[in-house]
């Protein structure tokens, strides 16, 4: 049973690693230098930067979805799912910022230029960090789950404004626009590697999400057992005391 039930998922996980390694190797060795950039060789980093940004948005959307589900059903497992996805949104947003800073250094001369896109992602990171500060500040689990679900909804509403609408509403930006989705943008091979990267990173996200949710659910079950055991021992102590 063990061999049959673990062989399939194991093959899938190995295939995922191979896909990620293949996109990395293709990004560095197969893709031609990107024309139209001051440093065409270093512009290859877009095939890592853009997938990280897309997966960060997917993770934020999933976090918002489970925040809504928690507010409707009030089940702690939905709170675990929302917070795990929020953590992964923060992680992928950090990766987007780091790869963006490397791109900025090579193309614009400095890691941080206070470009509208950079400023917007910094605000988004602060909003994400505040979510975890809020969770850490509230001790009561039910109150913590409700407050963080409400906050998650507010935070995720800010995502499209900060990552797309605000930076694209100004021409005072160094950030390239429409290089991915237009005919005159990057070479077609970039789109292949980029979408393969989005697919691979999305699978990576779902795997990390599933594992962390399983860990969080185990923790919930364990806490429940401890609570019941302590209730039993208190009840037992009361009975013993009453019999005296």
């Amino acid at each position, binding site marked *: 049973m063990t061999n049959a039930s673990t062989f399939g998922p194991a093959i899938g*996980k190995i295939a*995922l*690693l191979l896909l*990620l*390694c293949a996109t*990395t*190797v293709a*990004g*560095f*060795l197969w893709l031609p230098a990107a024309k139209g950039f001051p440093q065409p*060789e270093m512009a*290859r980093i877009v095939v*890592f930067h853009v997938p990280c940004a897309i997966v960060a948005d997917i993770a934020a959307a999933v976090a918002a979805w489970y925040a809504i589900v928690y507010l409707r059903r009030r089940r702690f497992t939905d709170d675990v799912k929302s917070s795990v996805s929020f953590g992964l949104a923060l992680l992928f947003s950090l990766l987007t910022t780091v790869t963006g800073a490397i791109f900025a250094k090579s193309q614009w001369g400095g890691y941080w230029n206070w470009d509208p896109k950079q400023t917007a992602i910094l605000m988004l990171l602060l909003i994400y960090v505040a979510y975890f500060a809020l969770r850490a500040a509230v001790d009561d689990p039910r109150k913590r789950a409700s407050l963080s679900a409400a906050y998650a909804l507010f935070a995720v509403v800010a995502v499209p404004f900060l990552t797309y609408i605000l930076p694209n509403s100004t021409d005072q930006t160094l950030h390239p626009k429409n290089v991915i989705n237009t005919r005159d943008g990057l070479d077609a091979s970039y789109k292949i590697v980029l979408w393969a990267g989005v697919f691979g990173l999305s699978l*990576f996200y779902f*795997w*990390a999400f599933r*594992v*962390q949710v*399983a*860990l969080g659910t*185990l923790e919930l*079950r*364990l806490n429940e057992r401890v609570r019941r055991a302590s209730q039993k021992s208190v009840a037992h102590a009361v009975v013993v005391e009453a019999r005296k």
Partner: protein
Amino acid sequence: MPALIPLMLVPLIIWIAVWAYLWSLDAKVKRLEREMQRLHAGESEDL
């Protein structure tokens, strides 16, 4: 192009390290779930 190879190793090492971490975490979760089920079954028998 060869100048990019050392740079390419950075994301490759990160992917492999994170993948290995997730693999080990996955195995740990499965082991803990099995132990939890065994514990639950043991308590049911006690009742």
